[in-house]
């Protein structure tokens, strides 16, 4: 083969690098522009979605603030998050009194992790509402956890009282077979969606076991909205 036949077709390495560099630079500018342009709207959307879920599970709420529970107690979130701190949201009624507390919980469901928010009422020491933050459960089956009336009735007053030492829940939150709920701390599963129902129960139990022992002794700090 004659080398001169090949020569005109080959492009020099420098020109290849130059082209790729140019294209990458141009694309970089486009991406950064799009990111900057949409950042605020996206952040506002996320905050709005969170607020909407919280206001739905704590119906009396008008405003909310973010808190975190650490080993030393609880404090308003902001600045550096301490290691192992648990986030929760205090929701306040229009007159500034505490309407309820919303806490995030997560557990493995059927398809992926089911992330929920549940409302905790310090007055009855119970869970009084749930909402889903993210899930990929089977449509029409697992996603009944947000539509099934009988299942949602479990969360009108789910008992999560602490024991004498305030160290753990007096009774573990348990998911039982549909129709066999006997105690206030049990959850009637949805028949056919047992795995997802269990995930909800586990998410509440796991999160309440850790958070409530830190939260309950300090609940007075939350009674009034800080201005």
């Amino acid at each position: 083969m004659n080398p001169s036949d090949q020569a005109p077709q080959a492009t020099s390495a420098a020109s290849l690098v130059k082209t790729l560099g140019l294209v990458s630079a141009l694309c970089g500018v486009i991406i950064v522009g799009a990111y900057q342009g949409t950042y605020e709207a996206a952040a506002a959307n996320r905050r709005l979605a969170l607020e909407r879920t919280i206001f739905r599970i704590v119906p009396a709420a008008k405003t909310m603030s973010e808190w975190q529970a650490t080993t030393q107690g609880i404090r308003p979130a902001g600045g550096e998050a301490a290691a192992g701190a648990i986030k929760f949201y205090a929701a306040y009624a229009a007159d500034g009194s505490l309407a309820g507390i919303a806490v995030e919980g997560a557990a493995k469901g059927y398809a992926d992790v089911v992330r929920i928010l549940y409302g905790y009422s310090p007055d009855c020491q119970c869970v009084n509402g749930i909402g889903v933050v993210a899930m990929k459960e089977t449509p029409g089956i697992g996603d009944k956890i947000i539509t099934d009336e009988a299942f949602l009735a479990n969360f009108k007053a789910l008992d999560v009282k602490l024991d004498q030492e305030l160290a753990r829940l007096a009774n573990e939150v348990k998911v039982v077979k549909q129709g066999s709920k006997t105690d206030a701390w049990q959850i009637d599963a949805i028949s056919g969606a047992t795995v997802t129902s269990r995930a909800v129960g586990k998410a509440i139990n796991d999160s309440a076991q850790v958070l409530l022992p830190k939260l309950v002794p300090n609940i007075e700090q939350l009674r009034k909205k800080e201005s």
Partner: protein
Amino acid sequence: MKDLSQAKNFDEFMEGIWRQNPVFVMVLGMCPALAVTVSAVNALAMGFATTFVLVCSCLLVSLMRKLVPKEVRIATYIVIIATFVTVVDYIIQALSLELYEALGAFIQLIVVNCIILGRAEAHASKHPPLTAITNALGMGIGFTIGLFALGGVREILGAGKFFGVSLFGANFQPWVVMVLPPGGFFVLGAWLLLFAALKRRKEAHLAASGDGHGA
């Protein structure tokens, strides 16, 4: 002369909508077509997102068609496509978080949608920007129609709703399998069957009328 170029433009546009429809004729981009078409809204959103990426990347590819050496053309196309997919990703997050959750990973997966790379390589890199955009727009709309045909049917059968509006009242027992992954195959199969039957009928009709003229 103007009429001729308009007719050609129209032809470029219609290619993707009917003659070379990406979903029903070329059977391309099946991953999003089967995965996200559980409802009409998801299908339309996915279709529009893909159209946006398709048009923008075809425009850029077409503009740079004389600058890019052929050795690095695929790498260049992928970078360009990935850029616009990222842009779409941000835009959808800013528009609606629910939609973003519903479409999930499939937004990012537009990058590997073979329609887009295929159009960039087979069409945009050989045609001037206007023609490339026209063709890309037609392909995008054709893809959107295809997804909508799947999503609409699946939502009606599988959830008893259309655009989230309940159609049959509370006593309707939805055909849940239609919104599960197998349902995507059932509905796509049914549509392909319909189009194949239509095509066969048309061919038979043409053959028959051809014979008629001959006799």
